[in-house]
């Protein structure tokens, strides 16, 4: 009798577990699909009507040479805006490498474009550190940093989510405790949104590239934007 009860309990647990897993998996897949569809709509063939999508806006930041700059200092050029941090070993170098290749593919048309790398790590990314970092990828890329408040403001405008993850909690997921000696306390990483925004010469949102977009695709879209919206930088 007892054994039968036990069997029944195990069976219920198994079926329940499987059902829960199925529900979680379908929820996850639905969310992934939604994200993909949104990205497709926004990065599809058409650009957003300039001024219609409330992404981006005015900012005051410090460039990698140490000058205080606003969006107006880059006016007249299309902006490629990417958020990251210079201690980021995988995602940021990949995207900056892709942006650099896209600029090379654009040739003379790259003069119409200003790529901006906005640091989400103002604590460690001083102008000097950023200068060293962006120069490694392409001479055209400008690194931007600022106070924590300035960075928070620009990230919010661009809907660029970011979150500091301490090494202790990072390793805690893995080993189930924060007492791992291999994780120095002052060390941290930043989870962040991986989009690159293409903004009009008036800093209006046109489209964005999700992480992993090929440089060829980026260059093609930038060319299309220049053909459609003109090149004020060349007219000056």
């Amino acid at each position: 009798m007892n054994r039968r009860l036990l069997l029944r309990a195990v069976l219920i647990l198994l079926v329940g577990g499987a059902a829960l897993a199925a529900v979680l998996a379908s929820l996850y897949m639905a969310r992934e699909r939604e994200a993909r569809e949104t990205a497709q709509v926004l990065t599809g063939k058409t650009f957003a009507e300039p001024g219609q999508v409330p992404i981006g806006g005015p900012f005051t930041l410090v460039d990698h040479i140490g000058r205080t700059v606003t969006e107006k200092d880059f006016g007249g050029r299309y902006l490629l805006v990417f958020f990251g941090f210079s201690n980021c070993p995988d995602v940021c170098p990949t995207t900056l490498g892709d942006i650099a290749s896209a600029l090379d593919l654009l040739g003379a048309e790259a003069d119409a474009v200003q790529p901006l790398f906005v640091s989400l790590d103002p604590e460690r990314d001083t102008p000097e550190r950023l200068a060293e970092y962006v120069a490694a990828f392409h001479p055209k890329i400008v690194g931007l940093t600022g106070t924590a408040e300035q960075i928070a403001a620009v990230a919010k405008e661009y809907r660029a989510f970011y979150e500091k993850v301490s090494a202790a909690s990072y390793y805690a997921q893995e080993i189930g405790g924060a007492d791992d000696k291999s994780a120095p306390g002052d060390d941290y990483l930043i989870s962040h949104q991986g989009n690159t925004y293409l903004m009009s010469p008036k800093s209006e949102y046109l489209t964005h590239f999700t992480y992993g977009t090929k440089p060829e695709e980026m260059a093609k879209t930038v060319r299309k934007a220049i053909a459609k919206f003109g090149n004020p930088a060349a007219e000056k």
Partner: protein
Amino acid sequence: MRHLIVTVFAVVALGLVPWTADAQQGSGSVAVEQPWARASIGTTRPAAAYLTLVNNGGGIVRLASIESPVAGRAEVHRTVKQGEVMRMEPAGTIELPAGGRVVLEPGGLHIMLMDLKQPLKKGESFPLMLRFADGPTVEVTVPIMGPGARGPNQ
């Protein structure tokens, strides 16, 4: 009866011998293909290295640890894409089933080289030791590509 037990035991033991040997060979026949790293920018930031692990043996193989004279610490980490947010996490133990293949590439699994002892310069190379649990240590020479390289051929 005793004969039967001895026979059964012998058959099982014989069956186990090649099996165990195979498992050991399994750890011994891990191939490390196409290692490459990105040039570091100074020494105060972690660098990343990538490669492909192939288990040609018949048993499960686990990557226990990674060492390199150029870094104080080396670990496999994973970039996870959650919607539009990119997050990193330690990958834990990398396990290769018999005949299995694990690719470390940008945007996915990567070897984080931390506490760099020297800058990784494009065009140079460095040794990397991959220690497998209950198995050998495989040493590979990792060529250094550009800081934004996407693969070993750039």
